[in-house]
């Protein structure tokens, strides 16, 4: 029994030890727990700091995004204002190079003739439209816009903002309600629809800023445009520059005063029926006093103006000395089977303006 007791004692002592050990262990655990808690607290603290940092970053990001949104909104607003102003000026003012030739034509006509009378009213109209900031001509025409831009311009957005500006320009009377559904004849009164405006983009990696040219081309002068396919038996026009000359002069004679002469011709030799007409209009973006780099075309341009002015059609077709104010000719390649000469006639109310934009989409400077 004693042994048993001893054992018991031993047992008890060992259990005591065990208990003690457990206690120590517990204490350790407690310490560990405390430590853990401490660590946890530290972690929480760290997490809080981290969270705070994240929160700060998020705020920063939000601010940045907000700033970007504001910047975008500002540049959207700036582009809207730019397009509205470009439309106003294009509709109300003719470029300086055109004004110069109009004054020359006025001086050239004989005094007290209907031709001089017409040129006087034309000049008075140019002055009045600018002063009143109102359309030179009530036919504010097809809105042709040519955009040359660096890589990365959002064309979809550009179009949207441009359309908004056109709607506004129509509301305030810079533009006539000029866009008609060809099938129903309905005029929505906003100048937006299939093909309207006529917007062309050209990406140019070398450009640092956006360049926009706007041209308003009325229906009267558009209607006297013509496209010839050479050879033309009736006119005896072959597939050479003499043939080209013959068809151009034929178009001038046929136009008479219907295109609101004295006018300016934009011509494309070659291309297909579509590209030819388009390029003929792009010739009208050239300055009237520029020089064609191709010597034959330079000669032909001069000859067309001089010969046309001998025809006696005159301003408005009243008879007189000035039938044409200018002629600009460009060339595209053609197919062996085709030889088109495409002629676009621009009236004296030659509405063409161009601008370069700043990074903020504001008008930096006027090209013409």
């Amino acid at each position, binding site marked *: 029994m004693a042994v048993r007791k001893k054992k018991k004692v031993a047992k008890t002592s060992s259990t005591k030890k065990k208990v003690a050990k457990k206690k120590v262990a517990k204490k350790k655990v407690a310490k560990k727990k405390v430590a853990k808690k401490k660590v946890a607290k530290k972690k929480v603290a760290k997490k809080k700091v981290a969270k705070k940092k994240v929160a700060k970053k998020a705020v920063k990001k939000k601010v940045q995004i907000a700033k970007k949104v504001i910047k975008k909104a500002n540049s959207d607003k700036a582009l809207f204002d730019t397009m509205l102003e470009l439309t106003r000026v294009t509709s109300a003012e003719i470029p300086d190079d055109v004004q110069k030739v109009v004054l020359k034509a006025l001086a050239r006509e004989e005094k007290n003739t209907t031709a001089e009378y017409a040129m006087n009213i034309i000049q*008075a109209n140019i002055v*009045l439209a600018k002063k009143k900031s109102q359309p030179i001509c009530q*036919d*504010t025409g097809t809105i042709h816009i040519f955009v040359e831009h660096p890589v990365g311009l959002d064309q979809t957005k550009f179009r949207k903002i441009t359309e908004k500006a056109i709607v506004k320009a129509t509301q305030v009377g810079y533009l006539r309600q000029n866009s008609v559904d060809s099938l129903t004849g309905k*005029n929505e009164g906003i100048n937006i629809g299939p093909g309207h405006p006529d917007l062309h983009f050209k990406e140019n990696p070398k450009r640092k800023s956006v360049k926009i040219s706007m041209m308003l081309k009325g229906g009267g002068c558009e209607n006297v445009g013509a496209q010839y396919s050479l050879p033309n038996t009736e006119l*005896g026009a072959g597939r050479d520059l003499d043939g080209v000359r013959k068809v151009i002069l*034929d178009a001038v*004679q046929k136009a008479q005063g*219907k295109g609101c002469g004295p006018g300016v011709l934009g011509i494309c030799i070659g291309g297909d029926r579509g590209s030819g007409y388009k390029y003929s209009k792009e010739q009208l973006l050239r300055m009237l006093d520029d020089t064609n780099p191709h010597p034959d075309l330079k000669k032909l341009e001069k000859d067309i103006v001089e010969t046309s002015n001998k025809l006696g059609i005159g301003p408005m077709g009243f008879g007189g000395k000035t039938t044409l104010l200018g002629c600009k000719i460009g060339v595209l390649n053609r197919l062996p089977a085709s030889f088109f000469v495409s002629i676009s006639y621009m009236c004296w109310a030659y509405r063409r303006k161009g601008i370069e934009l700043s990074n903020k989409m504001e008008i930096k400077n006027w090209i013409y």
Partner: protein
Amino acid sequence: MIKLEYPFTKDKIRELKVGDMVLISGKMFTGRDAIHKYLHEGNPSPVDLNNQIIYHCGPVVLENKDGSYEVKAAGPTTSIREEPYQWEVMRDHGILGVIGKGGMGPKTLEGNKKYGCVYFHAIGGAAQVLAEKIKSVDNVYLKEKFGSPEAIWELTVDEFPVVVTMDAHGNSLHEKVNTDSSNKLKSLL
């Protein structure tokens, strides 16, 4: 410079000759492609056009808040598109003057002679000078149907400048310039 004042009469109209520079004062009605086609189809005119002048024009007109109208630009449009219809409008509606640009053809010239009418040429593109001569917009017809540029606008004008290019005696400046320039071109080719 000849002054032609409202009310217009056939006698006064027959006195005018090709080349006359005329200042018109009084009333005129705009009418262009849609209206001419509409009248040609036999529809009645919403306004009495007897002894009136039709102006081939699609003006820029703004509507003020009080419902009144303001003409912002009002030059002539190309007239030749109305060549198939114009003589009928002279016959059926009794107009005695047409204002437009670019001139018209033999049917209209014949109509001028037969019904006592003249063709006045306004200066194409001179929308501001001509809008200044418009003193009031008195009414508008068929605007909802055809849209603003194609509607009939009843206008009062003061000294509206035009040139007679087709008179009531069979003379046409356009015919003459066309023939002369065609002959000249043949000699230059």
